[in-house]
């Protein structure tokens, strides 16, 4: 993919992440008191709300894509050899896919009852 497209994704995910994280913090810190927000039963009930599960999945994808793409940029600046550039790109894709898959697994298990409430 062209660098301009990757940077467009970087900027778009940054804007979306700010919006999603803001909503997330409001939910966790304002709507629910923080002490109850992180209780296991509360978290499970949040996951089992379909809308909020989709919201969390979106937050997961957006933050991970933005974070790992940012890390890729930093790593590209450290060294400039072709093999390094190639392995950093491959590593970034693998890291994004693996972490999104693991996070999605948590969301799915919580939503569909794989985790006991």
């Amino acid at each position, binding site marked *: 993919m*062209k*660098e*301009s497209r990757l940077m467009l994704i970087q900027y778009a995910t940054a804007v979306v992440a700010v919006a999603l994280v803001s909503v997330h913090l409001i939910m966790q810190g304002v709507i629910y008191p923080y002490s109850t927000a992180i209780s296991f039963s509360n978290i499970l009930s949040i996951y089992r709300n379909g809308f909020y599960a989709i919201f969390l999945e979106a937050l997961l994808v957006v933050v991970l894509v933005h974070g790992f793409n940012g890390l890729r*940029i930093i790593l*590209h*600046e450290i060294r*400039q050899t072709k093999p390094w*550039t190639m392995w950093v790109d491959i590593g970034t894709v693998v890291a994004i896919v693996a972490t999104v898959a693991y996070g999605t697994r948590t969301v799915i298990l919580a939503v569909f009852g794989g985790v006991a409430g």
Partner: protein
Amino acid sequence: MSEVKLVVQRFDPFTDAKPRLAEYSVPKREGMTVLDALLYARDYIDHSIAVRFSCRQASCGSCGMKINGRPRLACYTQVDELKSEKVLTQPMDNFAIVKDLVTDLDSFFAKHRQMMPYVIRSDVQEVENPTREYLMKPDELERVLQFTYCIKCGLCTSSCPTVAMDTKFPGPQALAQAYRYTMDERDEGGEKRLEMLDDAHGVWRCHFAGSCSFVCPKGVDPALGIQLLRRHVLSGKAPRNAGEGAKLVSPAAPEQKPPS
């Protein structure tokens, strides 16, 4: 007569293991530039000081160096304006040292050339045997004018944090020139430049620190040029190819009639 303490970083890569600082007392006079002080030290105190200079009027860009920690032109910096008892002169960062204050600008000019810093035209016949004049409107000139003031002194590249890390990054000077020619209404090579810059080590690696614009002695704003260039890299279209170009070739000048 008052004196200025001139501290020069001395280093010869062939004989020295590491740089050292040498101090010289130079008699100060009104309007004295750092280059004047350096040349006094070289002519009357230590002939071995290496310093590059030419025009002495901020036109050639030869005497770029770090003065009291900031990249400046030695001929364009008066000793008095530094308001300091000592004047520390060091070679520019991000360049290999040839000797003392002289740096190797080969990579700098190679990156400049890489940007194809000239007007590219498809009408080769017309370029080689011109019959008409390529015109620019004042507002078209205004768009690129400040970037034409670049004297290629290397101060912007010396101050750039990305150049310090990424050896493939073209640097602010080269990118500003890429913008200058891409935005030139007479140019037809913009898309080539934009494609070349859309790379992992290209225009996107600028972090917009803005130090390039801060240190430019000619008032050029390379950071602005880079940000504007990004817009065109995203679209992949140079202005002229996007259909915004003005009429490029003027009509042939009418033959003058002899007075009747």
